[in-house]
């Protein structure tokens, strides 16, 4: 298997405007609706403790 071990790349085409994808990634209220529990702060950075509490991320 030649999968990279230091990076993961995923490409998906979504029928939505660019701005909506940005907002979905960076807005906590928006994130809650699809990234359950994996909250980020309002600047789009990961929470200061650097931990992801999202159960779906294992």
């Amino acid at each position: 298997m030649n999968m990279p071990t230091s990076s993961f790349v995923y490409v998906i085409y979504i029928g939505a405007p660019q701005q909506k994808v940005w907002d979905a990634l960076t807005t906590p209220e928006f994130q809650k609706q699809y990234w359950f529990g994996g909250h980020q702060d309002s600047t789009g950075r990961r929470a200061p403790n650097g931990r992801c509490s999202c159960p779906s991320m294992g």
Partner: protein
Amino acid sequence: MSRFVYVTYIYTTPQKVWDAITTPEFARQYWMHYNVSDWKKGSRWEHQNGDDSGKVMIDGTVLESDPPRRLVTTWTRPDKSKEPSRVTYDIAEYNPGLVCLTVTHDELAHDPAMAASVSGGWPKVLSNLKSFLETGKAENIWLIKGKEGQ
């Protein structure tokens, strides 16, 4: 690159995913091409142009067929200029009404051009498949002159 793996979760049933891959008219609505075979082990399959020219874009042999869970085929250039690669569709019911689809395209090391082509192609096909099964809508991504990221 010898192997390409793509995982997508789709709110649908395994049977619908199976049908979407193996039914020519269904495939044409999101893949824009027909997949034609009786899908029995050992049978030939053809990926035919959806423009109804009957042109075979890719063909191959069905290696495994376990509807609606698993399909394995070879993936061959019609001119047979390179050895075939192989595509495996694993269709798992993650939860009722939610399918985890894993497409593995491997044995590509001897054909870098095909590896590059399918690395760009599968995300389009499988994004369109997800959109189509979940919303009933899919556009012809291949006709859109778009900007890819990275």
